[in-house]
């Protein structure tokens, strides 16, 4: 017979304000098997844990129930407390009377009644708990970083510097990411390339870092400590070992009409190309869809001009399979498509551009060699209008509900840079709010207004229309409460950012969760911001939420530390809540094996003694090192031979019964 102790937490007033904890204690004490029940201000505190440990010793408890916050919060805390007092950590159950009760109910009567029932269910479950022992699994001392932007590069560098192997997988032909497209960075106005390129070079040169560019993650299996990943290295059509990066092939390539992705389509590129001059690796790829040789079979100019003989039209995609102990997602972002924002005439007027396009225009290596000019007539503009929050903080489904966070600052940067370089250009910014939290951020914005005379108007723009080579902007000024109608030469849209569209596919492969906006979910919004809820998966950069470069770099470092912390271990303690087959009930039908995602179930011919009947039977055997405890097999098994430890059939039924009682 179990001797159960019940500990009800007040959580200050978080629980106690809506749940009458004394009544919960009283009701719990009457449940069968309960020999001890008490309440305390903060059960998770050292003093609270001491109460638990003392009660276990004094009353010889065999199992405990803590009525407190979510088990996702403190289950481990209480398990450790139990273990310290000498009972198995899996003899602990949590009744979630905070998140699932006191925080959502107002009526004390109702909340107390529910808390009693939740406690009862936990007591019923713990009565059937059995001590469980954890096993161990290996840790592969190698990490994978998906995405080669600043987040991925920084994470990889930090992990590599700690002495572990890291592979970076980058989809495009070069690492560098969004940051490589930027001209200057706020609030210091230093050149983006100048600070990024050294990092790229460092990563490429690092003996612990392997970079797979023009590659994608194709398949992921395994689990924390030992993921197996297939990486597809797309055929580059250029032999990386031979190419010298001279660039002649790109010059001579007759197919030059492909929109240049790096310059956001503002100009074109050749079919064989490196995305930008400082690309790493500095080896071009042939864009087979636009290459004449691949389209028609005729051409082959690049091959003819290549002195190194590096062009290889026969090259095939290659799959590299590698094991990793940890995986970092650093897939970054893109700007949203503006097809639902026709009022700004983005699709019809070349002089309405996005901020990222402006970055390219301002950049000395960009389509205009750094000269500010209108894309329609290549004339310098006399006035410019910046529109904030295009698709951000959007109430309707056209855009995003969130704030993209970086736009206020980069718009101030753009305005400032333009006023600095072209003092006669009038710059007007339409904004909802100017958000500048961050070191030296507000000062930066005020400089734009005060020193550089940027005209900030609080209000939104309703329409941008092309009229006689000019753009007519209709807006409102909310402070002066008047309608504004102004002519301008260029309009720049601070377009909302969104996670890279590929992240869905990647998250699915990693079984990492994603929120409604496709940002990867962190394990805890405050306390575990760089870890995915899926063990061994870490988050770096904008894939987790909008952030600027310093924040991204900081998060990248944080993710690296988490990875290093994991890789430093020689083995991991496995979850003991694994499936177990009762060989006397198993008839070897293979249903369970078919639904196991980990290949943890195999079959053995086993000699059994079934109540006196001795025979050899084909029975299922679970490899507990591979089993992750999902329980799919337990339902596939018709006879109930397969059960899940820690969430056994009878435990769950006991909870059901207790709730429905």
């Amino acid at each position, binding site marked *: 017979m179990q001797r159960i102790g019940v500990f009800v937490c007040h959580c200050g007033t978080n629980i106690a304000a809506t749940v009458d904890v004394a009544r919960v204690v009283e009701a719990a004490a009457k449940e069968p098997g309960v020999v001890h029940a008490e309440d305390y201000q903060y059960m998770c505190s050292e003093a609270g844990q001491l109460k638990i440990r003392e009660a276990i010793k004094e009353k010889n408890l065999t199992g405990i129930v803590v009525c407190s916050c*979510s*088990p*996702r*919060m403190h289950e481990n805390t209480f398990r450790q407390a139990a273990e310290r007092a000498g009972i198995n950590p899996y003899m602990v159950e949590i009744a*979630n009377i*905070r*998140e*699932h*009760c006191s*925080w*959502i*109910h*107002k*009526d004390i009567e*109702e*909340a107390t*009644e*529910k808390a009693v*029932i*939740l406690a009862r*269910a936990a007591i019923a479950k713990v009565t059937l708990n059995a001590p469980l022992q954890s096993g161990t699994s290996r840790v592969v001392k190698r990490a994978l970083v998906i995405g080669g932007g600043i987040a991925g590069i920084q994470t990889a560098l930090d992990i590599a510097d700690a002495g572990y192997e890291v592979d970076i997988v980058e989809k495009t032909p070069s690492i560098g990411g969004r940051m490589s497209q930027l001209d200057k960075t706020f609030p210091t106005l230093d050149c983006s390339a100048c600070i990024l390129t050294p990092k790229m070079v460092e990563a490429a040169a690092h003996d612990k870092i392997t970079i797979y560019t023009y590659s994608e993650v194709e398949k992921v299996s395994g689990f924390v400590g030992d993921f197996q990943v297939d990486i597809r290295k797309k055929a580059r059509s250029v032999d990386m070992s031979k190419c010298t990066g001279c660039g002649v092939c790109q010059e001579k390539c007759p197919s030059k009409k492909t929109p240049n992705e790096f310059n956001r389509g503002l100009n074109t590129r050749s079919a064989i190309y490196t995305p930008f001059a400082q690309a790493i690796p500095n080896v071009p790829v042939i864009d087979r869809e636009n290459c004449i040789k691949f389209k028609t079979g005729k051409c082959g100019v690049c091959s003819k001009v290549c002195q190194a003989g590096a062009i290889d039209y026969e090259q095939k995609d290659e799959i590299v399979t590698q094991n990793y102990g940890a995986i970092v997602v650093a897939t970054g972002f893109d700007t949203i498509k503006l097809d639902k924002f026709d009022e700004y005439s983005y699709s019809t007027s070349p002089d309405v551009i996005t901020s990222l396009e402006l970055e390219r225009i301002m950049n000395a290596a960009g389509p205009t060699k750094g000269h500010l000019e209108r894309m329609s007539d290549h004339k310098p503009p006399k006035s410019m209008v910046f529109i904030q929050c295009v698709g951000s903080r959007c109430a309707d489904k056209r855009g995003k509900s969130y704030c993209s966070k970086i736009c206020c600052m980069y718009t101030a940067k753009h305005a400032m840079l333009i006023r600095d370089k072209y003092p006669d250009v009038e710059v007007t910014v339409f904004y909802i709010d100017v958000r500048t939290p961050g070191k030296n951020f507000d000062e930066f914005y005020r400089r734009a207004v005060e020193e550089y005379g940027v005209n900030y108007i609080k209000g939104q723009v309703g329409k941008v229309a092309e009229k006689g080579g000019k753009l007519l902007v209709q807006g409102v000024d909310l402070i002066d409460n008047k309608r504004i109608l102004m002519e301008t030469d260029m309009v720049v849209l601070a377009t909302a950012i969104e996670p890279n569209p590929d992240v*869905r596919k990647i*998250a*699915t492969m990693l*079984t990492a*969760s*994603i*929120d*409604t906006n496709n940002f990867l*979910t962190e394990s805890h919004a405050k306390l575990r911001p760089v870890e995915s*809820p*899926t063990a061994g998966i870490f988050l770096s950069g904008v894939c987790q939420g909008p952030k600027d470069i310093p924040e991204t770099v900081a998060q990248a470092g944080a993710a690296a530390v988490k990875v290093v912390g994991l890789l430093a271990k020689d083995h991991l303690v496995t979850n003991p*809540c694994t499936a177990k087959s009762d060989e006397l009930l198993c008839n070897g039908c293979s249903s369970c094996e078919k*639904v196991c*995602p980990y290949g943890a179930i195999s079959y053995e011919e086993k000699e059994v003694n079934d109540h006196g009947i001795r025979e050899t039977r084909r029975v299922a055997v679970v490899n507990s090192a591979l089993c*992750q*405890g*999902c*329980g*799919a097999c*337990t*339902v*596939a098994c018709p006879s109930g031979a397969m059960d*899940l430890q820690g*969430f056994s*059939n009878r435990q*769950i*039924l006991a*909870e*059901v*019964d207790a*709730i*429905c*009682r």
Partner: protein
Amino acid sequence: MQVEKTQEFRPKIVAFCCNWCSYAGADLAGSSRLAYPADVKIIRVPCSCRVNPMFILRAFQRGADGVILCGCHPGDCHYTTGNYYARRRMTLLFSMLDYLGVENGRTRVEWVSAAEGVKFSTTMNEFVAKIHSLGENVRLGDLRCKKD
């Protein structure tokens, strides 16, 4: 029985929530103070695929008026494929219960991610309202489990 009818109907609702998405979604609903009726009691399971039809029938036997199963969105299962199996199992089970003449509104599956506190709360509010409209579960109950 006559006396009971004058009392307000308080449905018993069992919600099976997977540990990784929906239970966390319920936690988020809690920390966001998004209320839903106290009639809903949550049972934590590792994955929606852990839920055996026997559990659902047992809940009804013991007097539950509605049973809802919440798991990760298809494609987002922590265990990769668990919710796909759960989806097929529950589709067939619910269809069978409907075929037996049990009100099909008493059973429901909803995918709720860890980030969908709002969805969790709305779903529960909707489900409780549905059960209210259906009233007490008579067709799948066990007379022996009725409290006099």
